[in-house]
């Protein structure tokens, strides 16, 4: 199949993509488009088809059906690979080589000119906090350092599209934060980023849009905020008072759909949180109570995820 010529501004375009392993359908007729410069999250429980999708997009495996294009080039073609940077799931650098040699190796394979490669590697190692250890063999690195290096290896060719498969899974806080900050600044600099994760917070903090994939199918694609807001019935108001109150009287307030005691607070679920706040303020002054805290809570992305997938997110 010849490589298509780029025609539009979509960095990633996927249509009717299907991949089967024997009787198991790992990815079932999925489709989505990622705009140039977009930070796109691919969210789903383990085994949902996230890694299979990334592997098709990065040319590691071939799809059985459907179309996957990067900047108009067929995924898996040399041109598509040339413009991609990849951080595969559970990948490793060459542990018998130094960080510097790993970066140089990647630069040479991508055909980056030597002077450019050295300049970029120096800058990358610095921003990844690895400059001092650049000549140590990678086998002496901690997990977090290795993962930072792997991100550096994906960036040494200055790719237009960056794929990351669970890049912060199981990492220490410092490395996670460093990687997230770097991803944000790369995206601000115009790079298209495709990130798979099962971490709701991560998707929420980083992504312009997320696709939620479950059981091999995409069930929602939208901005994290919109996905949250679309999850009906999960808006709530959390309130606590200086003195104990009769829970029954709170539950009977107009607009309260559900009622729950959470620690020393009461959580009241409602369709109209704004109106309920007013009601609560009036209620407390009528009853002579003092409010300690009063918060409105929108549904979290986790709530949206649970509502959409029926999967308990903590185990995802």
């Amino acid at each position: 199949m010849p490589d298509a010529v780029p025609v539009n501004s979509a960095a990633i375009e996927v249509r009717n993509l299907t991949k089967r392993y024997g009787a198991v359908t790992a990815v079932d007729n999925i489709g989505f488009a990622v705009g140039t410069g977009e930070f796109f999250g691919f969210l789903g429980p383990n085994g949902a088809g996230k890694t299979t999708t990334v592997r098709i997009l990065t040319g590691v495996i071939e799809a059985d059906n459907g179309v996957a294009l990067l900047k108009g080039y067929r995924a898996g073609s040399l041109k598509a690979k040339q413009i991609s940077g990849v951080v595969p799931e559970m990948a490793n650098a060459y542990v018998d080589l130094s960080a510097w040699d790993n970066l140089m190796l990647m630069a040479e394979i991508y055909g980056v000119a030597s002077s450019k490669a050295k300049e970029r590697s120096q800058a990358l190692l610095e921003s990844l906090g690895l400059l001092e250890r650049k000549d140590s063999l990678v086998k002496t690195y901690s997990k977090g350092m290795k993962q930072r290096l792997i991100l550096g290896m994906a960036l040494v060719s200055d790719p237009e599209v960056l794929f990351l498969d669970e890049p912060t899974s199981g990492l220490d806080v410092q490395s996670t934060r460093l990687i997230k900050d770097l991803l944000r600044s790369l995206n601000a600099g115009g790079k298209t980023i495709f990130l798979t994760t099962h971490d709701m917070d991560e998707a929420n903090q980083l992504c312009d849009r997320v696709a939620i994939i479950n059981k091999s199918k995409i069930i929602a694609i939208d901005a994290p905020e919109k996905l949250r807001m679309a999850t009906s019935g999960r808006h709530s108001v959390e309130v606590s008072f200086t003195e104990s109150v009769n829970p029954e009287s709170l539950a009977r307030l107009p607009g309260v759909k559900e009622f729950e005691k959470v620690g020393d607070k009461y959580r009241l679920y409602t369709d109209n949180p704004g109106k309920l706040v007013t009601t609560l303020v009036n209620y407390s002054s009528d009853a002579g109570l003092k409010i300690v805290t009063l918060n409105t809570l929108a549904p979290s992305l986790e709530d949206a995820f649970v509502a959409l997938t029926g999967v308990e997110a903590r185990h995802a």
Partner: protein
Amino acid sequence: MLELAAARQQFRRALVIAWKDIRIYYSKGPVIIFGVLFPIFLFLSFTIGRHLTADFIIPGLLGMILFFMATSISPIVMPWEAQARTLERLISCPVKPETIVMGDIIASFTFGAAISVVPVIIGLFMGITISNPLILALAIILAAICFAALGVIFSIPPTNIPATINMIATVVKFPVVFISGIFIPLSELPVWGQWIAYISPLTYFTDIARSYIQGQGYLPPAIDFAALIGFTAVFLLVAMYMHRKTMPMRI
């Protein structure tokens, strides 16, 4: 022209992969054990006490060391990379599967061709003469490519355990050494033994080495070269075609 430029680019990248292999694998156990120690001990055990001349010993030693060395790392690179979790990254780079296989073959070839200098130098100290060093060098290069490609064929089954592949390789490599005219020259084999010898590419290299070191081969060198070229072509094609199929199964 565009395709030629693309092919040259892939070849350059194959060299990068080969250089990576050389740096990583030269000191690994299998290379030293299966590439150097094994052939030397095997050879000594068959030659000591047999009052053989250097002219007879050196072509056999050369053939065996070249064969063992060139097939020592090419089988294990692929399972090793898959096990070390570096293979997925490599496949996602702008290289074809064939380029990765070619890189592994080039690395293996380099080891084989380089180590073959050792028995030649030993031979020169023992007083052998090489009637045409240039043709012998050509034969060494050709045979090193041939054996390196054979080594890569051993790693076609998509297991990610290097030891399993090494077992497969050993099961094939040992019989090959015994049927290739190294310990018993072709001329002394019965006819059925000769027919078995002809299915081994090592036979033809050993015969060339005997032609130019011992001064007498069994077959005309032109036939030996033609057979080696044929084996090399088939091994390269099979290695590339099959690895393209099995490489994604390792991930």
